[in-house]
């Protein structure tokens, strides 16, 4: 059997504050993501959703347990990984084109070749004509498109997304979800998508993992059998509503005080 794209086995992660207070963010957490699978993680605030992503990138190693990417233990930043952040992480001093060209240039591609490649990706995310704008001149949704192009240009085999659309308004968010599914379906990266929005998780994912409140561990897992390609309209089908109700029931038990 092929090893899964991402494998977290019994990981825990502790944080130690400067005053020496220890907080446990994740406890005995295990998760496997198959190659080409879109996995969404939902859970209450502060349950360690983002922490899982940090461990997969190698920027925040776990306190115990093992994290493997394509069968190999994670040590340092893996070039196969792409990450889309919740907050704006595009560089405000670079134009749209230069932002998108960043990854290939960092990885040693010749700058003019990188810009050609970037121009193609800028077009693909629908920002043709905005190549020489600075991020502050764009709307929130357009900046997210820049972030997507910046990540996808590296053609990551593993895509980690930390509530990427949570700052957008509802309509823009629906548009960006369709955009993401479109880009993803071309190369089928393995995705871990963290969100607090149940409908977003069901719309996008093959599998939804619900976490308990902090310190987080897996509470339940739902397979989403909805056919692809999915459009925004899928959320009005009875299966969708049924799934949404079940997941909410799970989550409600965790968020109620």
């Amino acid at each position, binding site marked *: 059997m092929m090893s899964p794209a991402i494998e977290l086995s019994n990981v825990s992660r502790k944080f130690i504050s400067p005053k020496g207070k220890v907080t446990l963010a994740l406890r005995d957490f295990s998760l496997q993501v198959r190659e080409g699978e879109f996995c969404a993680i939902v859970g209450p605030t502060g349950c360690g959703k983002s922490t899982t992503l940090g461990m997969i990138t190698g920027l925040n190693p776990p306190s115990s347990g093992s994290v493997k990417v394509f069968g190999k233990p994670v040590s340092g930043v893996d070039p196969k990984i*792409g990450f889309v952040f919740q907050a704006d992480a595009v560089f405000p001093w670079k134009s749209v084109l230069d932002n998108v060209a*960043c990854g290939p240039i*960092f990885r040693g591609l010749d700058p003019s070749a990188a810009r050609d490649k970037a121009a193609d990706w800028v077009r693909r995310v629908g920002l043709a004509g905005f190549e020489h704008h600075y991020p502050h001149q764009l709307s929130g949704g357009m900046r997210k498109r820049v972030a997507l192009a910046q990540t996808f240009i590296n053609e990551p085999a593993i895509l980690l997304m930390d509530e990427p659309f949570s700052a957008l308004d509802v309509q823009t968010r629906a548009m960006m979800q369709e955009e993401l599914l479109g880009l993803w379906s071309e190369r089928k990266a393995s995705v871990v998508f963290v969100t607090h929005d149940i409908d977003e998780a069901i719309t996008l994912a093959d599998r939804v993992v619900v976490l308990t409140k902090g310190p987080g561990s897996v509470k339940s897992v739902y397979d989403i059998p909805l056919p692809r390609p999915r459009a925004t309209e899928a959320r009005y089908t009875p299966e969708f509503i049924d799934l949404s109700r079940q997941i909410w029931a799970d989550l409600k038990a965790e968020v109620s005080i």
Partner: protein
Amino acid sequence: MNTTTSTMTPAVPSTEERLALRRAQNYRRLVIGLRTGLALAAIAAWEITVRIGWLDPFFFSQPSAIYQQLATWLTEGTGQGPLWSELLVTMEETALGFLIGSVLGIICGIALGRNKLAADVFSIYIKVANAIPRVVLGSIFIIMFGLGMGSKVALAVVMVFFVVFGNAFQGVREADRNMIANAYILGANARQVTTSVVLPSALSWILASLHVSFGFALVGAVVGEFLGARHGIGLLISTAQGTFNAAGVFAAMIVLAVVALGAEYLLTAVENKLLKWKPPQFVEMGM
């Protein structure tokens, strides 16, 4: 405005817009008019109060005397040589001190900002060094480097370094953690993160400090000349002081003010060019 946001083609302005534009223009004229008026009134009041005997010209001098002093310096030169060459000496010391001090400050600020251990070890010494009145070092520099340019440049460097260093360090510390993580994941190595994320995000802090520190460089050069020199505006002031020539002190002050204003103008131009990616500061005018 320093940024061009021309996604919209300007339509033909309506009457309302034209009126608002005119109102904005009138306001600008009013500000300039009031500024000029205030300066003229202050100078006139000074001159008159001296002439009718309310102020003693021995201590306070008077605008006409200062003007005459400037005119003499310009046409006949100062006691030490032509005004231009004196000014050039001071400018050279200031510029050299400013350049060396700010480059050193930027390098050290970024190096310490990127290295937590070094920052924790050195921070205490930097606080101490910053608390000492650094002008005192001028005397040591005169002993070390003599009456020539070196001692003034050294004093200007010390004055500039700590301001720029502090801001560069703070700017590096304030660099967005997400952006740094983003750069690492996109494939940057530590050096690339420093040059393409940390440095640009610290740049607005650094540029802000350069405005203040040019003034400090000037102070360093002039004070250095006070303490002992053969040429320069500072020496001119201390000579005027020695001969109880108040007009000379004021005239030298005006020369320095012109220099400082010119430098400020240049720095603002550089800043606007380097920070053209920043959102423009909109000044809204009610319509």
